[in-house]
């Protein structure tokens, strides 16, 4: 075994296949819960079913919250409001940022300069600051929340997509497509996109996690999803003072977020390794 292959083997093992499989399984479970929340949850999202702060029991597996709503049900519904919203935001930010980034990379010239400078300027303002300003302007409704975070994220996606696109844009086959007279979108779709899939997929996973943590922070400042809708960040926030009394309630939604983040990131690592080294 040569040193080189030995090292490669080590690198690809960074996330062992079995770990990756578990992570994919976890993500699939979250997706399942998100889609089938109404069927899975024992009670309704905002339904009051017991006394406030009942301890865990066979009836309420995780106890009840301050209004006597079932914590487990709220956690399950929270998957919708957390994972669903984060997914919507991430997809939207990739549609905007990804498209513009690849266009800037392939087209170059003035368009690239203008877009890059605008993205630079927007990125110089921290996401939280920009979000506070924009959400104050446009209100904290569901639609404006998704749009504002997607726009902020799009600047980051733009940068990654443009950088990845630039590497590919100078390749011979892209040049050849240009000479063949193919249109901008055809070049992007056929020649560039297939070759920037890996970095963009990785970015997608990271952005996705960033989004639901970001929403949790906004919830803390009173600008996230509005109650009584259950989202994990808000659920941690609402029950945060219980942490001081060493009670478990806020731990469940925090754990739900942490497990998902770890799973997504490990999967992303794995995907990246596979892309860098297809032999493994």
């Amino acid at each position, binding site marked *: 075994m040569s040193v080189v292959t030995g*090292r490669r083997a080590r690198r690809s093992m960074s996330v062992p296949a079995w770990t990756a499989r578990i992570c994919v399984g976890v993500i699939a479970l979250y997706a399942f819960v998100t889609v089938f929340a109404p069927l899975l949850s024992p009670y309704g999202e905002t339904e009051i079913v017991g006394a406030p702060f009942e301890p865990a029991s066979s009836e309420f597996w995780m106890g009840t919250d301050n209004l006597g709503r079932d914590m487990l049900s709220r956690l399950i519904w929270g998957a919708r409001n957390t994972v669903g919203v984060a997914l919507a935001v991430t997809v939207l930010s990739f549609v905007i940022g990804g498209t513009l980034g690849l266009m800037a990379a392939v087209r170059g010239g003035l368009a690239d300069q203008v877009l890059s400078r605008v993205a630079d*300027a927007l990125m110089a303002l921290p996401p939280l*600051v920009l979000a*506070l300003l924009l959400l104050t302007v446009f209100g904290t409704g569901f639609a404006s929340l998704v749009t504002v975070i997607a726009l902020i994220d799009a600047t980051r996606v733009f940068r990654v997509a443009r950088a990845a696109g630039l590497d590919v844009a100078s390749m011979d086959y892209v040049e050849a497509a240009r000479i063949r007279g193919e249109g901008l979108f055809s070049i992007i779709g056929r020649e560039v996109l297939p070759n920037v899939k890996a970095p963009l997929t990785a970015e997608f996973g990271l952005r996705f996690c960033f989004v639901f*943590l970001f929403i949790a*922070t906004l919830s803390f*400042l009173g600008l996230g999803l509005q109650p009584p809708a259950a989202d994990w960040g808000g659920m*941690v926030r609402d029950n945060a003072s219980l942490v001081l009394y060493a009670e478990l309630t806020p731990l469940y939604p925090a754990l739900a*977020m*942490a497990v998902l983040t770890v799973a997504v990131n490990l999967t992303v690592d794995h995907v990246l390794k596979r892309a860098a080294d297809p032999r493994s």
Partner: protein
Amino acid sequence: MGALILRRIALALLALVLISLVVFASVELLPGDFADVILGQSATPEAVAALRQGLGLDEPAVGRYLGWVSGALQGDFGQSLASGRAVSELIGGRLVNTGFLAAYAAIVAVPLSVTLGAVAALYQSSFADRVINILSLGFISLPEFFVGYVLILVFAVNLGVLPSLALLTPEMSFGEMLVRTLLPAMTLVMVVTGHMMRMTRTALVDILSRPYIEMAELKGVGRARIVFWHALPNAVGPIANVIAINLAYLVVGVVVVEVVFVYPGIGQLFVDSVSSRDLPVVQACCLIFASVYIILNLLADVAQLLSNPRLRQPK
């Protein structure tokens, strides 16, 4: 080399001008104004009108922008609508506090994350690598306020060894300040270390796959020596970048930590000013945040240029 750096500086200045426009415009767009908000439920139409006129909110926007920019260039950000004090005076002390906490966290977090990243890269796929990886991810994925409350529970409420309030007073000694702000600093360290560590590891792993490292390996140079002597200096560029981003975050993104530990930093002032529509303060804060980000990035760029001889040649 000099020309390249000048070019970066010019771009940074351009970004600043653009930002000043964005900041001014978005702040102008804030619905409702200070006069409405400050009086809240107790706002009568006459009181609002009186206050609005007194504050000069009825002048045209273009004039106010030019006046603001020329003032800002001389370090004069106008007066706070809320307190009537100079914005620079209002921000000054809090900016120092924020800088102190950020520096505190950075001094711990930067060496920690670079070391952990290097260790993880050195012992790729080992048990240590995986533990570092998963722990760092875990800390990234918990909301900051949750981490903060748990630290308070453990160290302040249960053990009683550290204060939960990070209040600073002028007469405090430096040592006292370090103890007072230990919990918020630790919270920030936990939040930023994960990101920096992962990027350090990625950058190192990338460089470790380069041919010249393989050469060194073939020559029989030890792995630890390869990582710290050959790979790390060459990874300065990407690492400096991610450090710059995280330092900017420490200056700006700490509002949540400020709330939890009652630390008088600039983030709380910013949030309060947005909700009370104290526009001069909001604008000044935004401009400062943006400048910090741009300057840190500029420094990271220069560090990258200096560390990588190949980039020094103009294209």
